[in-house]
């Protein structure tokens, strides 16, 4: 009996030691996460309640004034939010659509499929600054390829010089940049759809569209959710692309939330910029939540 207790105790000690060792593995990641994410996030929250300019030794607590200012008395901020929503909607719709179309055509293995996938994926591996410079030259109204192409149809544009359309031209660049990346997520989703389900639906007389709508689309819902969530986040973080294309600071027609926050920081309004950053996070979380709901609603209801 005493021997058994001793064995149990030894086993317990060994188990506890093993758990401690396993737990120790999480420490480096946890330390980095706390240092570079949790603490800065909490500090941002604190700064957002002050009028700190980013360098001076003193500051005042201003309560929610920074948030009130951003939401009610700063047309530059509301303009950036509006631009960002336009940008997001266009990118979300077209990037998802193009990525899905490419994936539908390329998810089966055939001769040249790997090459084509690589080709469409290629823009993703470029740095955003390179992409910005490539498109900056395409959009040059006098020397750029853009007007050469439009010239075939007898029209021309000043592209980024037109305040009404500039943000949409940048959205096109963003779609070109990331559609290939989203395509790979859809391809993974499509390749996991069981072939027998598609064949069964075909045997039951379903056409190609019906098969896609009732079998494939519901089966790739998780992939769609990932694509839309990721696209949403990318659309709000298109900071370097905007600065590369539009310069720093960008004109108000191309100013989005991230560039506005940056400009506010550069303008020595650290506390106010922190409040804008917190609103930025809230907007992204809210939109991601909404997108997930929308994706859920597009799925056919399961009959019980």
């Amino acid at each position, binding site marked *: 009996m005493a021997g058994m207790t001793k064995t149990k105790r030894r086993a317990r000690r060994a188990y506890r030691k093993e758990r401690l060792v396993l737990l120790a593995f999480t420490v480096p990641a946890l330390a980095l996460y706390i240092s570079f994410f949790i603490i800065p996030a909490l500090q941002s929250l604190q700064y957002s309640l002050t009028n700190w300019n980013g360098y001076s030794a003193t500051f005042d607590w201003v309560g929610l004034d920074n948030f009130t200012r951003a939401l009610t008395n700063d047309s530059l901020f509301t303009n950036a939010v509006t631009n960002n929503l336009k940008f997001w909607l266009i990118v979300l719709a077209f990037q998802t659509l193009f990525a899905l179309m490419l994936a539908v055509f390329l998810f089966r293995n055939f001769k040249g499929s790997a090459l084509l996938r690589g080709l469409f994926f290629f823009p993703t591996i470029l740095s955003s600054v390179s992409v910005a410079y490539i498109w900056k030259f395409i959009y040059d109204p006098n020397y750029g390829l853009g007007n050469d192409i439009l010239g075939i149809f007898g029209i021309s544009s000043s592209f*980024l010089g037109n305040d009404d359309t500039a943000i949409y031209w940048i959205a096109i660049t963003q779609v070109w940049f990331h559609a290939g990346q989203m395509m790979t997520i859809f391809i993974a989703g499509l390749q996991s759809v069981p072939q027998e389900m598609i064949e069964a639906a075909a045997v039951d007389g379903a056409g190609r569209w019906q098969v896609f709508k009732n079998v494939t689309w519901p089966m790739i819902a998780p992939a769609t959710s990932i694509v839309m969530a990721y696209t949403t986040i990318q659309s709000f973080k298109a900071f370097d692309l905007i*600065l590369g294309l539009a310069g720093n600071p960008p004109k108000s027609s191309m100013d989005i939330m991230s560039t506005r926050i940056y400009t506010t920081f*550069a303008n020595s309004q650290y*506390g106010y910029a922190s409040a804008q950053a917190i609103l930025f996070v809230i907007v992204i979380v809210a939109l991601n939540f909404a997108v997930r709901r929308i994706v859920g609603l597009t799925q056919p209801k399961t009959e019980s």
Partner: protein
Amino acid sequence: MALNNAFTRRRILQLAGVGVAGTTLAACAGPGASNGGDGDGNGNGGDGGNGGEEPGSGSLDPSLAAGAISFAHWRGEDNEAFAKIIEQLKETYPDVEVRQDITPSNDYQSNALAQIRQGTVGDLFASFRGAQLTTMIDADLLVDLTDTGIADKYEASLVSEGLVDGKTLALPYQLVFNQPITNEEILEQAGASELPEDWDSYLSLLDSIQGLGITPIAWPGGEMGNAGQLFNCMIMNLGPSDDMCARIEAGDLKVTDDWFLEMLRHYQELIPYFQQNATGTAVEPAQQMFASGDAAMLATGSYHIASTRALGATFPIGMLAPVTAAAGEAKYVGVHNATFALGVSSVSENPDTAFALLDFLSDPAIAGQYGDDTAQFVTVKDVEYTNEDLSHTSDWVQKETLLAPRFQFNNLDIRNAAEGACIEVVGGKSPEQAAEDAQQIIDQQIGN
């Protein structure tokens, strides 16, 4: 089972709770306290500046120069010219190593303060005249150079921005003319024997250039920073006082006032003389247009002469500012700016070496060499230039020019609103509407 309870959910939650509480406390360190501050609990974050020592309290001795320093600036195009000077410096101070930390100008405008304050770069650093220099001074980032007497090596009238309360904190090194540069061959073909000094003769010259089938002005209206240089000239003779931009920011003047609207209407008159779709043109294509002779003027400034030469321009280059005044009424014929304000960082661990480099740059022979290599005038006294472009345009140093007014703005959003109105007018908006929209932004900024 007790064995499994060693790290139960409860235990993990307890650990997480302690972690979060600790993190929260750590995060609650007051703004500005990262450099040794001691918050007083009343919203004052303590001494967040530079460890509490008064900047410049120690004396600088270039003879002690040794070790490595960083020279932070934004002039990528001057990299080679500075590298040459650094090599020469090492002949005098063999133990000195200087690394140039170059950031593109727009990013430098945004990031320099944070980077220099951390002390990782910029033992010697440059600041833009205006908002950036003001901020650097406010942040106590500049060592007081008064006792070194280095300011005596500079033209006093050009370095006043770096002299604050009797202290020499920074020395603007470059003298830039923020006005259009011209292809003199084209101007001659257009019959410009004398440079126009009123608005009507200016428009008449632009007509003549257009008659040659050449775009009169290449203007980078797609880029706020460079597009705004023209604003300097357009406003110089219209403002009710020379400090008109500072007064706009203070709320004394409004961009909806008649004089500002008149300037916007002049922009409207220039639309046919800019390249097509000018509001979408970045600075590189505008430079190319000028260098290749497709445009008679480049509406940026003398700082683009060297880069235009690098693009292959072989014609004689001059300068011509649009004078928005009737004949005989112009107060100024152009705009200058004393910028690239050099200062020794107060957080530098090697200020003697940083000062040695500054002192070396302030030598008339070295300053002249820098001017020749970069086709830029300098503010150092007794400098002789051999660069043809500088010799050719040196008469501008004596002309009646206004210190660039756009740099009077300390709030960049206000500056962008005022200058953005000009771009919007060229893009087709009415002057009244553009001014009203800009004033709304300015009012909001002033109110906060």
